[in-house]
């Protein structure tokens, strides 16, 4: 798991470096605070990368990135995609239906998934729209 000790500080260092390059274009009053934050962040990221790279033995790490993480992240991405395209009421309900259907085991999983999904448009329309007068995003395809 030696890579896990290098990749995250390297990514963060890259972010700090890009931000620092952007900040250099501004006048000092505007650049001072973000420059300090990015500068300190970048230096410490480099220190961490060098420390981890020089370590002779791989450091023990809690990191176990794998298919499970990708699957979980896919659910989030799917929910965001469906909400973006079809809005909260339909896209949200669809994402809940699919996720519960896959996650839930047992005989009544289709009924459970349908009940869980049905709660979403009821909340979006009944609570947000009617009660709180808040119109949530209707979706790219349905606007």
């Amino acid at each position, binding site marked *: 798991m030696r890579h*896990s000790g290098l990749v*995250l*500080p390297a*990514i*963060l260092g890259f*972010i*700090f470096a890009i*931000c620092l390059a*952007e*900040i250099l274009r*501004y*006048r000092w*009053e*505007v650049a*001072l*605070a*973000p420059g300090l*934050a*990015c500068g*300190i*962040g970048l230096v*410490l*990221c480099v*220190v*961490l990368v060098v420390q981890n790279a020089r370590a002779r033995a791989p450091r023990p*790490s*809690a*990191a*176990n*990135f794998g298919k*499970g*993480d990708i*699957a*979980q*992240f896919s*659910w*989030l*991405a799917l*929910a*965001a995609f469906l*909400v*973006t395209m079809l809005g*909260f009421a339909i896209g*949200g309900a669809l*994402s*809940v239906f699919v*996720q*519960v259907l896959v*996650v839930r085991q047992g005989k009544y999983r289709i009924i459970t998934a349908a009940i*869980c999904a049905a*709660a*979403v448009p009821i909340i979006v329309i009944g*609570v*947000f729209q009617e009660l*709180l*007068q*808040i119109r*949530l*995003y209707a979706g*790219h395809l349905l606007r």
Partner: protein
Amino acid sequence: MLDGLIALFSSPLALVLMVVAVPIGMVFGAIPGLGGKIALISVMPFLIGLDTLAGCVFLISLHAVVHTGAAAPTILLGIPGTGPSTAVVLDGHSMTKNGDGTRAITAAAIASGIGGVVGTICLALIVPFALSLMKQISYPEIFLLTLFGLGFCALLSGSGLVKGVIVGCLGLTIAFVGKETTYGVERLTFDLDVFYGGINLVTAVLSMFAIPEMLRVGRKAQISQTEILPRADVFRQIALGAADIVKHRWLTLRTSVMGVIVGIIPGLGGDVAAWLCYGHAAQSSDHPEKFGKGAVEGVIGPEAANNSKEGGSLVPTLFLGIPGSSGMAIFLIALVPLGVSPGLSFVEQNNGLIWAMVWALALSNILAAVTLVALSGVLQRLARVPVHLLVPYVYLLAMASIYIASNDWRFFVVMIAMSAIGYAFLVLDWPRAPFVIGLILGPEAETSLVKSLSIWGPEFLLRPVSLLMIATLLFSMHRMSRRLMAHAKIAKDHIDAS
């Protein structure tokens, strides 16, 4: 002071919401994986348009009682409901295994109630003095306070100072995205108009806390198989639990006060308060050998501190707008839909509201303690809720909060990108609290730094008050870190021994 009580009791909506907030907060605490931050985030979309007093009372009551609710799964099932509850699990669950579950729950509930009330009394004592004290604080002091808040948080977040500072710097950097207020320059937007208004706090905090937690919960989906305990000898155990508090009254009071002090220092959180007081309880006990095997002091100490800390952390949060903990940072964000922007001027202009919040804090803690004793049976059933089924709803609630805050669907993309970083922090055991502290303190730190430099130049750091503050804060940081390490070592020794 009485204005607040009158204001609270003359608003039926505020009273109803306070009573409603207590069971909701306790349920969020009782379901492992949720907790105070998720509770605040979940109710945020429903706060828009709510009366300010009623909304503030609802939020403070909701957040104050989360740890009280968390005692049920922690003690009965051995599953910590919230992060700080991990300090209770060892002795609390051992008591359950010894057949003293209800006794432990009662002791935890009463200790939490007393802790909450002590925290409120300390807050009430501080309010009259704090206002005049805070008026003496100028830009250099605010800058130093924000820096040290971040420093404390990074130092004590438990994953190494360097990682803590890096995460804090990331939070600060995100805080600086968007239009700079003094010169109107657009910073760090990379010519993307989605960033012109900055990355709002709701998006950043949800992506860093709520969503990574749900990603983890979804991955480790499991339902507790522990049997529901029979309700035998309930009254006898409740009496024993109450007697434990009377017997250990000074420990309850000491740990309550310690919790308040930890709460006041910006950057420290519930974990620090709970473990500090667990260590103190073990150190001051006549029978330290019983710790880890079902010592009631191991329940009383952390539970009292967990709740009293909330009163203390309201001091920097309300008076300076500097959150005392990551939970308080989200509390600050949750106040935004209510039109509340904490700080000195807010406190001066809304004295009645502040006192109403103080009263709500005390009343909700008492209500939660009584409810916990009365409903311990129901709460242990709630702890068996399959949390992974809630995951898609939390995603949708998070997206709803982000959309309401930004009115722009493109922030869903920002959310996914930041969630990836937040999840990496969680899995690789990097601290996330410095991120939110940096995010909140960023604009305040920048304003006070630029104004200090404009008025005094770089010599502002050499002003006697600044030098005194730097010396005091460095000294207290050094002392605090040493003491924490000592207490943590004692607590760890007991855990290893058991």
